[in-house]
């Protein structure tokens, strides 16, 4: 397999806080690779090290075959980066941002016009291209940033939380761009996200990161399949009692509480919903609700870390 990014025990330590702890990643060329984890898991720190603006405390990484410490300039030429926080200048127009970027990355003069038109076409800024970016909507700004990252035809595009803070429709649009891009161009996309749906929909492979560690990496499909389970979510009046009793049932592979709900991993859950309700009634436990789900990445995440990806959110 041909890997475009490889890390070797890469770590970043701030005082006594370890933001990234000996991570080893292998990212296949031309894939869309997702780093999935809650806020503060170390996603941005990892990406910052890979795009050379942060030095690792230990370990190493190669990007497009170049070492991020020794050949940082070569690495920078090979990558396009869209940061989590906005990196636009209010008082420049969209086109000027693209021009500036092309110049900074040494795109030959005779190619610039063509590339800029090409990108403007892709990100569909329309007549807004010649207006100051302070007049842009959140989605336009993001599109401009993604487009800008593509001007110099990078081998790898880093997207740090590309759809954070965008409305659902814009998010869908950005997803479409990313998919189109990956299909059309010879480009690898490395993105971080804490949206399960995003990772599920876009990524060929996902690494689940929590507290600076990679817990698991595989394709979303395999990750879900590995759970070999449907998930039954129940709300009951006496949670403790229910769990105590339910632990004796052998068709439940795993049981855990998340917030005020009980989640149980079972095989072929359709047949078990009624059984569980009866079981609860027999034990004098009131069932408030019961739901059956086929696993999604969120469940994978919960299974591996024991907590939800966004605290308190559904």
């Amino acid at each position, binding site marked *: 397999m041909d890997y475009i990014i490889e890390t070797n025990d890469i770590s970043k330590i701030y005082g006594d806080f370890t933001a990234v702890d000996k991570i080893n990643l292998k990212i296949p060329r031309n894939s869309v690779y997702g780093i999935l984890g809650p806020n503060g898991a170390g996603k941005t720190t990892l990406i*910052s090290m890979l*795009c*050379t*603006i*942060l*030095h690792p405390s230990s370990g190493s990484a190669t990007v497009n075959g170049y070492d991020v410490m020794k050949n940082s*300039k*070569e690495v*920078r*030429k090979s*990558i396009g*980066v869209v*940061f989590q*926080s*906005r*990196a*636009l*200048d*209010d*008082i*420049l127009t969209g086109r*000027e941002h693209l021009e*500036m*970027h092309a*110049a*900074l*990355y*040494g795109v030959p003069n005779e190619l610039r016009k063509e590339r800029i038109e090409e990108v403007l076409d892709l990100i569909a800024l329309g007549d807004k291209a010649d207006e100051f970016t302070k007049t842009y909507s959140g989605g336009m700004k993001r599109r401009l940033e993604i487009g*800008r990252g593509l001007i110099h035809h990078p081998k790898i595009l880093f997207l740090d939380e590309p759809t954070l803070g965008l409305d659902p429709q814009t998010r869908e649009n950005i997803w479409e761009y990313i998919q189109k891009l990956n299909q059309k161009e010879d480009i690898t996309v490395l993105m971080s996200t804490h949206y399960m749906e995003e990772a599920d929909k876009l990524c060929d492979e996902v690494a689940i990161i929590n507290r600076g560690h990679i817990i698991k990496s595989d394709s979303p499909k395999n990750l879900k399949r590995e759970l070999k389970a449907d998930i039954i979510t129940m709300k009951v009046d006496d949670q403790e009692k229910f769990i105590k009793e339910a632990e004796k049932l052998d068709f439940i592979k795993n049981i855990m509480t998340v917030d005020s709900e009980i989640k149980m991993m079972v095989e072929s859950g359709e047949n078990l919903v009624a059984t569980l309700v009866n079981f609860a009634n027999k034990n004098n436990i009131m069932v408030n609700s019961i739901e059956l789900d086929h696993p999604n990445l969120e469940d994978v995440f919960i299974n591996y870390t024991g907590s939800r990806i966004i605290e308190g959110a559904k």
Partner: protein
Amino acid sequence: MAEWEGIYTIWFREAKRYVRYRSRILSSVVTPLLWLLIFGTGLGSAIRFGNIAGGYKAFIFPGIIGQTILFTAIFSGVSVIMDRQYGFLKEIMVAPVSRPSIVFGKVLGIGTAAIIQGVILLLLSFVVGVHMTPVIFVASFLLMIPISVGLGGVGLLIAIFTESMEGFNLIMSFIVLPMFLLSGALFPVTGLPSSLQVAVYLDPLTYGVDALRQVILGYGALPLYVSTIVVVGFALITITLSATLFSKKEQNLM
């Protein structure tokens, strides 16, 4: 070659920003005029001032040019802090351009803004009754280059060590105002109490103002070549220093 392109690009953005903030240009022309017309005329009528044609108003004219360059340069330098806060600095830092080139581009951009400001004032010299000739104009212009670049370097140095715009008042009180007041922009630097005298000669702007005064009015405390050497030397030092520190502290700038 690519580095030149980088320097040019960063300079060009800085210049564009300067031209687009019209209110800033306007206020930086009006402020010195207020100093010249109100302060200059007011204090000029209260004191008897030497034998300079045009009197006190004319005396402070080069000083006010120095002040304008100082304020423009420091404020533009401090804009790096804003670039950092608004995230734009990351876009520049992750580009394949060397750190010194970023600093040079920035300093040249700041210098350009400050020089434009100075030229506007030179063109307004008639307001204070200063006689302007092409030679004086060109000589002043040439002097403004190292003055602006040196002070732009100071602005960048401040930006490198300042986390956010909250520190801005401190910068005003502890750096910008003392530099202005000690520079001899408003009073002759000869015959001062010795402690003040020392402080005055430690202020790099003193030499810039003295050189400008020498060129524009033919009056100064130091020989022109001495003040010019100090001004050029100071510019070289601040650029080198900020280029070095910028490379060294790039990790903290993110």
